[in-house]
């Protein structure tokens, strides 16, 4: 702190600190705390309280209509005489059974006045009755709401009421993500090694370009390319058709996108390059002489990798695994766009449904928190396995 103050003076120092504080509080901490708070507040979805509220609302609506009708009739009677406007407000807005017949047919002034009085009286009676009912209903509503409030409050019920289906989806999503991570690592390690160890400059640049282009192309387009391949009329089925393994003529096209396997494959493709670059970055810093020395001393290829390259690449592997896992576990793009609605839900889709279809934000928050915790656990496990600190992970 003293160094900051010495160089930049009190004004800039306090400005920087305020900015960091705002960042932490308003962008990071409060939203998370708010989400966590919601996750632990159970929101009972009792039908009774909602029904009472609807009834009360309906009575209020009717009461205001009656008031309006009375005013309209009074106005009509006062300004009355002459030809009665068939489109008088009362006729239009009030209910036809109370005032409908009188409005259009009133021939003379006195008759109109009489019927107006009658109608007002009738409406007043209804108003009184409804008001009495309203008091009762509002009491009911208060009581039901209070009961609900009493049930509300901090609890673990959002988690414990997680249905077994959702829990299974949660576990499956995490398992799939771990598999994606493992496959990506196995596929990417040789690539990262080869690119990092290429001595020829042009070749290295070309390889790098070949990795950067697909990496930078939008995630959605990479997914879309695979949807085209796996679609029922897609390339994969056409190839199978031409090989005689299935025939389109008989309508045998396989709906690949309707399976979790397809989602899994596309996920590997979509996130594989997030594994390559971190590993590449660490292997690139490895001194080639170390590998040469190991070779000269008679180490086998296997031993060179397990004893020299892999230990050096540990931080990169940790970063790559964390990124790949996090992206796959939290991906709404891949399961949402590959055969939408055709395959079983992934956890991200369950979260989405809770927020935007069921409208149950607290359960949605609880599920998001579960996902966040799973990712934190994964990060922690990686830090322990690869013995790296947070500073080496986020660089």
């Amino acid at each position, binding site marked *: *702190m003293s160094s900051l103050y010495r*160089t*930049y*003076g009190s*004004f*800039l120092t306090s*400005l*920087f*600190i305020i*900015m*960091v504080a*705002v*960042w*932490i509080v308003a*962008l*990071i901490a*409060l*939203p*998370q705390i*708010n*989400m966590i708070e*919601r996750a632990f507040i159970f929101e009972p979805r009792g039908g009774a309280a909602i029904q009472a509220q609807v009834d009360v609302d309906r009575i209020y609506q009717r009461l205001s209509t009656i008031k309006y009708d009375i005013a309209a009739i009074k106005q009509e009677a006062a300004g009355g005489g002459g030809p009665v406007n068939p489109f008088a407000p009362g006729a239009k807005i009030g209910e036809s059974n109370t005032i409908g017949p009188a409005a259009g047919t009133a021939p003379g002034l006195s008759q109109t006045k009489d019927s107006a009085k009658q109608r007002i009286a009738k409406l007043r009676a209804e108003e009184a009755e409804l008001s009495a009912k309203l008091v009762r209903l509002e009491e009911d509503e208060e009581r039901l709401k209070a009961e609900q409030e009493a049930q509300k409050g901090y609890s673990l019920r959002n988690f414990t009421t997680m249905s077994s289906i959702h829990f299974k989806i949660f576990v499956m999503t995490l398992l799939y993500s771990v598999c994606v991570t493992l496959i990506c690592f196995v596929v990417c390690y040789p690539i990262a090694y080869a690119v990092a160890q290429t001595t020829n400059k042009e070749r290295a640049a070309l390889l*790098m*370009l070949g990795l*950067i*282009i*697909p990496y*930078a*192309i*939008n995630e*959605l*387009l990479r997914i*879309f*390319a695979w*949807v*085209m*391949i796996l*679609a029922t*009329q897609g390339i994969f089925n*056409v190839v199978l058709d031409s090989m005689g393994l299935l025939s389109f003529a008989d309508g045998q096209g396989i709906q690949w996108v309707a399976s979790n396997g397809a989602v899994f494959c596309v996920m590997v*493709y979509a996130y594989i*390059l997030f594994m390559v670059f971190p590993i590449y970055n660490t292997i690139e810093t490895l001194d080639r002489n170390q590998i040469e020395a190991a070779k000269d001393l008679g180490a086998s290829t296997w031993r060179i990798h397990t004893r020299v390259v892999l230990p050096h690449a540990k931080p990169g592997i940790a970063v790559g695994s*964390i990124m790949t896992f*996090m992206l796959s*576990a*939290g991906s*709404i*793009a891949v399961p*949402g*766009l590959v055969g939408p609605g055709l395959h079983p839900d992934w956890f*991200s889709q369950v*979260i*989405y449904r809770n927020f935007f279809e069921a409208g149950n934000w607290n359960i*949605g*928050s609880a599920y*998001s928190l579960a*996902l966040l915790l799973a990712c*934190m656990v994964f*990060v922690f496990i990686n830090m322990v396995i690869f013995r790296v600190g947070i500073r080496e992970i*986020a660089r």
Partner: protein
Amino acid sequence: MSVASKAGGPAVSQSARSFGVDWGGVVLNVYIGFFFLYLFFPLAIMVLAAFNANDTPSITDWRGLTLEWFTGRYDENGDLVVRGLPQDDRFLQGLWHSLLIAFGVIAVAVPLGLAGALVLTRLESRGTTFLYTILVSPILTPGIVLGVSTMIFWRDYFSVEAGLLTTMVAHSVFISSYCMLMFMARLQRQDRVQEEAALDLGASPVLVFRRITLPFLMPTIFTASVIAFLQSIENYNTTFFAIGSSWTLVTEIGARLRFGLSPVVNAIGVIFVLFTICAAVLYVLFKQREKRRTIR
């Protein structure tokens, strides 16, 4: 091994005579070849389908070469026959939304990242690691969690409905962290002697910041802005939860993919691909030049 020997056999036979075939290298090369085929084949299909006159994106059912998906087509009466990219208002509007969000993100994330990096590199205290962990935690948080938490927070505290603003904020949460890491990398190479000399000679702290620190950080401010811009434009997972009823270019592409495929999306894809290739070539050339300079 047998596959590798077929592919690389004749080419390496000469070197084989002198010091033995490097089988490992051959296998690795074949493997790299397959890997790049795996990376580029789907993209090539997508690009090709943008030029197919078939109105479901496909390359197997070829109905003739066309540019209609890029330009649209009118008949002689001036009525729209084929709705191409320029006629698609939602995409254009989405692009506009994306740009608005991205510039907002640059305006928020770059200064925050800079402030965070300055505080962290100069904070000589034990709390640094803790502060650092908090500030980089958004990078390690799944995108949908960031989107969700930002959306609820703004609704609950400020009754702001999900939309462009919440999306901009949700993007800024993690893009600020990326910017901070970039600034920290640069600041670690900073020689503080210049600043101290300026202070000794009587310059005010604000002047030192403006004339020494900022110019030193200028290249990083530029790259951080570019990265922030690209990250924001490209983002889908966070945006999807924070955008509400509005839309950006990418969420609109997503919506089209969910409700039936259209070659117009392929046309956008081609534009994205061209743009990306240009940017990537520039980046690699720039990197190489920088490397050469540091070696010298």
